[in-house]
């Protein structure tokens, strides 16, 4: 299972209070993880990625294994530690604004 952590506002929106556990079919990439996340929680559609372009929203970042993966290809394989559930895939709200 893939572990995904969400910012507080998105946890509220999805009505989850901790990490989300997802079964991801096929190769584990940013795209496949986010596809599975949005399938499980449709309310999150449009809040992390643009509806039409599927681009990451500007003030969100993707971290895993102490690395910023935000600028990696959405189809690049995620680290093995994410694939085997040792580390979470983190959706992080940028520190911006007040």
């Amino acid at each position, binding site marked *: 299972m893939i572990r995904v952590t969400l*910012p507080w*506002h*998105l946890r509220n*929106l999805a009505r989850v209070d901790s990490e989300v556990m997802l079964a991801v079919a096929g190769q584990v990439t940013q795209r496949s993880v986010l596809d599975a996340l949005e399938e499980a929680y449709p*309310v999150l*559609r*449009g*809040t*992390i990625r*643009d*509806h*039409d372009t599927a681009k990451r*929203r500007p*003030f*969100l970042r993707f971290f895993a294994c102490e690395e910023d993966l935000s600028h990696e290809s959405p189809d690049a394989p995620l680290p093995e530690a994410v694939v085997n559930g040792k580390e979470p895939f983190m959706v992080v*709200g*940028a520190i*911006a*604004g007040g």
Partner: protein
Amino acid sequence: MSGVRVLVGTKKGAFTLESDGKRETWQVNGPHFGGWEIYHLKGSPADPNRLYASQSSGWFGQLIQRSSDGGKTWAPVGNKFTYDGVPGTHQWYDGTPHPWEFKRVWHLEPSLTNPDHVYAGVEDAAMFQTTDGGQNWSELPGLRGHGSGATWSPGAGGLGLHTILLDPSNPKRMFIAISAAGAFRTDDGGGSWKPINQGLHSQYIPDPKAETGHCVHRIAMHKSRPETLYMQKHWDVLRTDNAGDSWQEVSGNLPTDFGFVIDVHAHEPETIYVVPIKSDSEHFPPDGKLRVYRSRSGGNEWEALTRGLPQQDCYVNVLRDAMAIDSMDSCGVYFGTTGGQVYASTDGGDNWSAIVRDLPAVLSVEVQTLR
């Protein structure tokens, strides 16, 4: 039993303020959606328990929330706003073409007859509608496509479609306003639109009398006279008596004709309200005095209403969607400030009091009269 419900959108959440018909004591409910910008929320005239809210954030984008119990509980509905066809470009601040990009919903206007039918005014300026209670939204493309869309440019706050007025006597006729493109009217239910800006004069555009490009801040209508509209423009207060075909300035003796809100008394179609704001950069009341101005003659002759409002050291703003009118026998007038106060008058503006005073900055105020 009658009562009123005031719907308040703020920079950090939504609130509902409820009172009985006396409007003396208030129950404050909220915040709903704490931490999110609530540009607007509004109830269906056909079903007062059906409410819609525009919830947005710079981080997470746009959501639409719907309530079926008068705001006690809410559920997110559809949030996909995709422009029809190839979006094309409008004019950017520097005059260059800029792709049309959806940013947020500024205003939600439920149909007068169907709780599931709602219009949405969005930034970058366009009009959308849903006919299934908010699950799916589609653009009314005739507005952006009518010809001048490529020349529209944003005001300081963005290229927002902020006002939607539905003609109660003609379901095919609607009026909208955009900063900074101007006012437009449709007579065929939104299929086609025409600019209705003749008589507007704006020194800040190259041709002060241009067909479009005017920074209209708000327009208002009395339901008994849908051909008469009142406008607060970036500068100037105006009226039309022919559904926007021509406008006349009625700023009269206002201390400044800059401001954002304008509204009409529930029972007196020639009684209108504005809140003058100083200049187009300071954005606070003249002389630190928060004054509502009332005209009982449809403009030109204005009186200051000050009883109960701060008359010194007050430097708040009142934003364009932040005034509303109830339809109780003694008409109630409400407005919210960027300082977080919501003021109410239960006697048509003669006397005011704050019904709540420490909310986040108020973006919008609507009121429902519950019978």
